[in-house]
């Protein structure tokens, strides 16, 4: 089989892909994807499109309203808000992704173990998740950051540590329902090990749910890290973090609203776009909603 034929086959499969077709018919999902693509493009090309460096101070040009020279205005140190917002997109997306990855790395294996073994293992893991659930996440994250010290990386760790519980819950429930399916017995009948059943039979079947959950938790991850940065525990100046920008700009909200409006707007748009995409994915990947 040559390469051209393989590629053709791939294209054909993609064209026939039901999930993709359904997604392309989902209007809100497409809108979300469009906003997300724009923000991602901004983040990726930040070095090209930023008018100035994000930390470039120009004290003679402080708190200027939006103009062709600085489309989103300038902040109290004369830094270009547009450039900072664009670089901030980089941080926000990266942080969101990182938090979700760490969360999934903690939550998914725990959920698999709980759902696969049941019994005592399940009781212990479920008790842990329930305990975590009982705390307001932001307070717990604050406590963790207080212990391990401020900084963006620490905030990512803290947020991930307090919000993996939904993954465990979802994966555990899904695993339990999959464990009762016959192909798991068939896998055991050919002599598969528990590890292999968990990761090669159960996990691929849980993956759609994990993907949906991930897209739906990215916005809250971004919002939590932003909140911590806003409170001064996260990114430290002059990092162009949106939370930090809001915090710095809040004193000038009446005479220079652009300092907070634009970071806030982008924060909202990012969260919104992930939510739209996540909802669309859930509807597209859920066979019940698909045919119901």
């Amino acid at each position: 089989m040559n390469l051209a034929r393989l590629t053709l086959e791939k294209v054909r499969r993609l064209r026939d892909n039901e999930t993709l077709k359904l997604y392309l018919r989902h209007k809100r999902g497409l809108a979300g994807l469009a906003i997300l693509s724009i923000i991602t493009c901004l983040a990726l090309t930040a070095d090209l499109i930023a008018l100035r460096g994000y930390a470039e101070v120009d004290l003679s040009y402080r708190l200027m309203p939006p103009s062709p020279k600085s489309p989103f205005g300038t902040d109290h140190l004369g830094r270009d808000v547009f450039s900072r917002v664009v670089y901030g997109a980089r941080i926000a997306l990266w942080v969101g992704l990182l938090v979700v990855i760490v969360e999934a790395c903690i939550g998914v294996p725990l959920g698999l173990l709980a759902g696969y073994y049941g019994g005592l293992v399940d009781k212990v893991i479920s008790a842990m998740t329930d305990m975590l659930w009982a705390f307001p996440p932001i307070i717990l994250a604050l406590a963790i950051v207080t212990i391990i010290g401020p900084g963006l990386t620490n905030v990512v760790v803290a947020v991930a540590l307090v919000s993996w519980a939904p993954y465990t819950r979802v994966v555990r429930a899904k695993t339990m329902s999959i464990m009762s399916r016959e192909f798991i017995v068939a896998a055991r009948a050919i002599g598969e090990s528990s590890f292999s059943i968990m990761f090669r039979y159960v996990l691929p079947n849980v993956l759609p749910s994990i993907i949906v959950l991930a897209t739906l938790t990215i916005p809250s991850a971004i919002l939590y890290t932003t909140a911590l940065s806003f409170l001064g525990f996260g990114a430290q100046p002059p990092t162009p973090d949106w939370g930090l920008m809001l915090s710095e700009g809040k004193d000038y909200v009446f005479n220079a609203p652009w300092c907070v409006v634009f970071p806030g707007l982008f924060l909202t748009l990012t969260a919104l776009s992930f939510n739209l995409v996540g909802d669309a994915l859930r509807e597209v990947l859920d066979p019940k909603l698909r045919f119901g």
Partner: protein
Amino acid sequence: MGDLVSRTLLKIENLRVYYETPRGPVKAVDGVDLEVYEGESFCLVGETGCGKSTLALAIPRLLPPNARIVDGSIVFKGVDLTKLSESQLRKLRGREIAVVFQNPMRSLNPVLRIGFQVAEAPLTHFKVSWREALSIAIERLKRVGIPDVEMRVRDYPHVFSGGVKQRTMIAMMTTCKPSLLIADEPTTALDVTIQAQVLRLLRELKDEYSLTLILITHNFGIVAEMCDRVGVMYAGKIVEIGGVEEVFESPLHPYTRGLVDCVVARRGSKARLNQIPGFPPSLLNPPSGCRFHPRCPYAIEICRVEEPKLIRVEGEHYVACHRAGELDFSTVLADVSEFLSR
């Protein structure tokens, strides 16, 4: 007899499997004794819920978590399977003992490619590379008659029809050429036209790989066609065992006779179907004595009180009935032999 003992592949003694439920233990298999000889086809027949699937799944210990082997032994090639650890069992499953399940639609992992699933067994049991495992898989898939195997191994199960899925399942279970294949109603979920093909395939593979086959079914036609010996189960117990012809031509247990009667009556199109009156008993609280006595037209006092033992009547024909021998079922014999000769 010594000759027969040496040929015994599987010997089940006094096996009891109970399901724990909130309403108490369900005695799905309650004291089963059974021997399966090397190279034979053994059939287990019985109504839905009589414990035949539980018995089958108990052999490779693939029972659901709420099931418990309460008592008894399952000796396979001289090893008591009930005493093995999970990791020791894992080495046997798929390698020595394989199971083909009832519903091929649900027995294949929907998100793994066919080739991957069939290659899993050799990959687990033999020291082979992924590529070698895949080529074994392709070879076996070709053997079970799947067209265009090289292309099909990249497909996911949902694009296959039921018959092809069951063939795939059979290929998957026989990749390592096990010595015992347990087929749990392998054709129940398939179209009638496909059933015969799948059965023929099973019989061919049995000869080719010299498998011992335990076939579970409620279809007497399949029993007659496929098997050397047959065991009839009722309410968690084996009530009659024997060669297929012996059991069909001279059933000794009233329940077997009733079953045979039901099938035979189907031929007369106008006549009302024969049936065994009543319902199978609840296995939560099975009847005392002989479990069949509430539905048995020949029941006498002792049937209510004492549980009949499985006794040898002649040759390899065993029955668990207090009145074995004194009952005369000759009225149905003519019909049965006609049925068998078709």
